[in-house]
């Protein structure tokens, strides 16, 4: 048991050192790519917390937008420091999630999927319709970027480290939640809600908790994204982006903490390397999605799980 944890530790450490060194060896365009990739990792991992309760929502990306708009409006129009608006972005998404949970969690399963989509789309239409604060279809531009001790975070390398630190912290928190009793209870709510209820679990409360925490972190991810991009538009948070999150999670696998991360990383790298296919890229995604559902319904994580078992048996037999 101890020995295994050691390998895990070594792997994590190498990964982290690699991530710290990486940007210095990358071209500008790939530095950008890494920043968005790390943000997307936070998006999928926070989404997975939601799926632990068994509910698949289609509002996650809109919650990312809620964080993004909050942070953009506060930093640009109210002059609040970006260091403050990033956590506030998460908070506002969490609060909105809390408010929405009353109507949304009267639905479950397919109805919840559709209901969450409808509510999210209505929010997105509100950004388009209310030009006054939200800027309509073209959104908000010239969103300020953070600044600290003379370091300009407009540059990709400092921003990369900012994102790396914030996302690592968030992942740690999400991991702790999943491995705690709360994670166990969320699982229980998923597999047998009535049984959980009968021993005193307030399923509504736990679904709400998962929704709020997931929104909190995806709201932070949204803020991180737009302070680097410099603009927010309603189209960044459309159902198309949501579908990509679903694809990452499903292709990666959603039974382990790292499954969605594998999905996001592998598919993003693939996507990046197919860049010159331009608008034909979605077809590749479509084919991959079908292949993974038909032949690999447990996701990429299953392959890595198999690899791990294989190493274990190889070790014990030697």
């Amino acid at each position, binding site marked *: 048991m101890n020995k295994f944890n050691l390998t895990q530790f070594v792997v994590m450490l190498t990964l982290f050192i690699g991530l710290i060194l990486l940007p210095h060896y990358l071209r500008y365009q790939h530095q950008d790519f890494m920043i968005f990739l790390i943000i997307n990792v936070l998006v999928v991992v926070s989404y997975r917390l939601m799926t632990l309760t068994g509910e698949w929502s289609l509002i996650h990306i809109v919650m990312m937008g809620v964080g993004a708009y909050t942070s953009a409006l506060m930093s640009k129009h109210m002059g609040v420091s970006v260091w403050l608006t990033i956590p506030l972005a998460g908070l506002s998404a969490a609060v909105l999630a809390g408010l929405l949970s009353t*109507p949304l969690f009267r639905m479950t399963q397919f*109805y919840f999927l559709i*209901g969450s989509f*409808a509510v999210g*789309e209505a929010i997105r239409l509100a950004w388009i319709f209310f030009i006054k604060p939200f800027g309509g279809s073209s959104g908000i531009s010239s969103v300020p970027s953070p600044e600290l001790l003379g370091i300009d975070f407009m540059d990709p390398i400092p921003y990369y480290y900012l994102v790396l630190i914030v996302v690592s912290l968030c992942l740690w928190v999400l991991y702790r939640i999943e491995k705690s009793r709360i994670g166990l209870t969320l699982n229980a709510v998923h597999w047998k809600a009535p049984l959980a209820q009968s021993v005193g679990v307030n399923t509504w409360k736990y679904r709400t908790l998962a929704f709020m925490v997931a929104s909190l972190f995806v709201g932070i991810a949204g803020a991180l994204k737009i302070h680097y991009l410099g603009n927010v538009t309603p189209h960044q948070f459309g159902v198309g982006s949501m579908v990509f999150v679903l694809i990452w999670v499903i292709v990666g696998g959603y039974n382990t903490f790292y499954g969605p991360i594998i999905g996001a990383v592998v598919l993003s790298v693939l996507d990046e390397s197919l860049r010159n296919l331009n608008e*034909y890229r*979605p*077809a590749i995604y479509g084919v991959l999605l079908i292949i993974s*559902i038909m032949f690999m319904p447990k996701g990429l994580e299953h392959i890595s799980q198999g690899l791990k078992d294989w190493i274990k048996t190889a070790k014990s037999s030697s």
Partner: protein
Amino acid sequence: MLYGHATFHTSPYSLSGLNEATQHEELAVDLFLQSIVNSLIQGGFFALWAVGMVLVFGIMGVVNFAHGELVMVGAYAIWVLKAQMGMGYIPAVFIAVILVMLIGIFMERFLFRPKREDPLGGLINSIGILFILQVVALLVGGTGPAKQVTPAFPGTLILDEFMRIPHQRLFSLGVSIAALLILWFFLTRTKLGWSMRAVALDREAAALQGININRTSLIAMAISAGLAGLAGALMAPISNIYPHMGHNVIITAFIVTIVGGLGSLSGAVLAAFLYAILHTFVTAYFSGTIASMVGLLLMVVVLIVKPTGIMGQRVSE
């Protein structure tokens, strides 16, 4: 010819691009009467879209997210056959319907049937197909501005000075209603139709009674796709044709099927016309964005208050 087709442009978020086009076209005309007529025409399209979704959901238990793309393929087929190859409209419509049916049959056989016990899997597969069809449309039509097809039936029926209906739209409405009537006749008066309804009610019981589930599913998907293809073919001469046009279709179809009661065909048809009226009027008097928002929120309210929809009656625990 008073009303050329070239003025039909869609706002980024109009659900079908039909009513706003008319709105620009006939600014002087009394908005109220015209909106009623538009609602009817749009309701016919909504019903065609939604009925196919309901059929597939009811009989196969699959939520087909690519349903809008099937409509899109139908419209593209008309563009290729009529606008590019110069074929007549009516034969082009037939070919479009058959083509989309074949795609539907393929989807049932190879994507939905293997995932019958796994509704999420079927749904994901449909998203996969959705991407592929959109790219196929891009390959066929290229990027660039939306495609348009000249109406096959030019001219306008002028009922009085306040009500003018382009013949093409009249034709669409007539064909939509005829298709719905034929479907209704098929489902209620034929043996095959009865067995399909039995499967929708209780798949296991139907299987025990010797109904061939594979065959019913295949037929349901073929009909659903055929109706989608027909809708696309009818829309082609009166709206913009572009790879993402299915987006509006699927959202509307969801609103209509949920409000009508998932699994209820008559509910879907009723909801289609009611929602078309609501959408047309809100668009006419406020804006297309507000109309879509109202539709989405209406759906949420129905989901909360009566998840079985306005016509649903099945008791669920």
